């Protein structure tokens, strides 16, 4: 009974503020006459009308596919290169200044460059996303690989763990917390790039649709698009957290113990 009560209380605490805010938004905007602040009711119906139909197939899914492909390519290439660079001291030292510079460049600048070089197209957008978000993944992988405890490496050597086996059973698991941190940053960047590449130079996609509504001064529709983007951000963050929790269960447990939270 106690457990149900505490669960119930957590649920209430969790939902209380969001519900209050939504209610306030609903009633505050209901009587609104401002053009840019339409009633929440109209936004919701626009959401229902515009986004739950053909648009899912025509715009939403392609956008998400481009995002995922670009992101996963960046992860694969970033981790692979990061491992290669991180394992050899000389290569790492040589590559570090250049990689750090590339990472310091704000990712969105990749959009105009690639537009000029490759032109508009679906592949361009994927390339934009991949080339923008690969840097934190690559650099974090290098750091993670470099930071593998030397005692673990010596243990591995003693027991004859070499080459691929060592990579699979030692290097990648040991570096995984840092790699995941880099991948999280990469995900944020990927989302930004997906949105702005569609806003700037596209004939389809979620970003393009929202801009189209904006240009046509279709306010509730535009707001509904913003909500859709927000929802995508939230859902992706949640999915990421689930994946991370699964892959790094051992790490979370270990850190919790170290911090004395038992």
């Amino acid at each position, binding site marked *: 009974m106690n457990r149900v009560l505490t669960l119930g209380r957590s649920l209430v605490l969790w939902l209380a503020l969001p519900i209050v805010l939504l209610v306030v938004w609903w009633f505050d905007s209901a009587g609104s006459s401002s053009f840019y602040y339409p009633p929440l009711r109209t936004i919701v119906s626009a959401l229902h009308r515009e986004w739950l139909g053909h648009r899912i197939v025509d715009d939403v899914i392609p956008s998400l596919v481009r995002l995922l492909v670009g992101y996963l390519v960046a992860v694969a290439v970033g981790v692979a290169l990061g491992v290669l660079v991180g394992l050899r001291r000389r290569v790492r030292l040589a590559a570090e200044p250049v990689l750090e510079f590339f990472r310091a460049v704000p990712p969105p600048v990749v959009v105009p460059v690639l537009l000029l070089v490759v032109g508009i197209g679906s592949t361009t957008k994927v390339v934009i996303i991949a080339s923008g978000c690969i840097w934190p993944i690559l650099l974090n992988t290098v750091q993670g690989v470099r930071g593998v*405890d030397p*005692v*673990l490496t*010596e*243990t591995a*050597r*003693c*027991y*004859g*763990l070499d080459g691929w*086996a060592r990579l699979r*059973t*030692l290097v990648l*698991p*040991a570096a*995984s917390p840092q790699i995941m941190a880099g991948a999280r940053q990469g995900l944020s960047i990927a989302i930004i790039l997906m949105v702005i590449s569609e806003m700037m130079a596209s004939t389809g996609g979620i970003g393009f649709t929202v801009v189209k509504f904006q240009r046509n001064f279709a306010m509730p529709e535009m707001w509904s698009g913003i909500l859709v983007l927000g929802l995508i951000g939230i859902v992706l963050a949640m999915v990421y957290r689930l994946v991370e929790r699964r892959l790094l269960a*051992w*790490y979370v*447990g*270990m850190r919790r*113990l*170290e911090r004395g939270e038992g």
Partner: protein
Amino acid sequence: MTSQTTAAVEVRHLKKVYEGKRSFEAIRDLSFAVDPGELVCIVGPSGAGKTTLLKCIAGLLRPSGGEVLLDGGAVSGPPEQMAVVFQEYGRSLFPWLTVRANVELPLKQKGVPAKRRAELTDRALEAVGLADFGSSHPWQLSGGMQQRVAIARAVAYEPEVLLMDEPFAAVDAQTRADLEDLVRKLWADLGMTILFITHDIDESIYLGQRVLALSSAPTVVMEDVTIDLPAERDQLTTRALPAFADYRTRIYGQIQLAKAGGRPAPVVQTVAG
């Protein structure tokens, strides 16, 4: 009495110099031999290059001069017949694997089939008293238990030579006593050759059949002491024997001499083998 799976370790004129702006001669000239199935302890002052010596024997470091022979063959990389237990137990176990998976990993690498792996792992975990902890993660265990896992891993590997680098230095005294007895028991049961490095003189006498006292860097052997104590050893009674105290005095004296920069007395050393 040699069992078929033990080996002789021989160190011949081992020399190790760390290169750099200031080159550092860790080991000058070490020579000794270990018979198959012997339990030899190596003691020395801090900075005596004990860990360097162990790493050279284990094939983790390449010597600058001299050689290490395992069963007559030169050691050039980590040999399959050796297992090492490090001092930093916490950091030598893979935190993302369970205890069981940790113990099994070297066996998997060796290509041991699954059924036999399970057997060896079960036996090893039971031998160190951790049969119930197979599915825990190392970091959930206490320090002493983690070291037991490392020992289990080494033992399951069925090595001919077991190298232990100050394995109990970071463990509390009570646990250390238990672990010392565990080592002697495993040695009695499995009959492998053990090289045990420690800075604790009492421990070296309690455990060893022979004790090698090392000088400080550049290291040489100060004295090779045969420990003539009964084979059945016990923390209370053995340590109370007058002979124990004698050995302690003798080795302590050598270590003090070593710390003051002394060198071994010019005695003809009988090197077995």
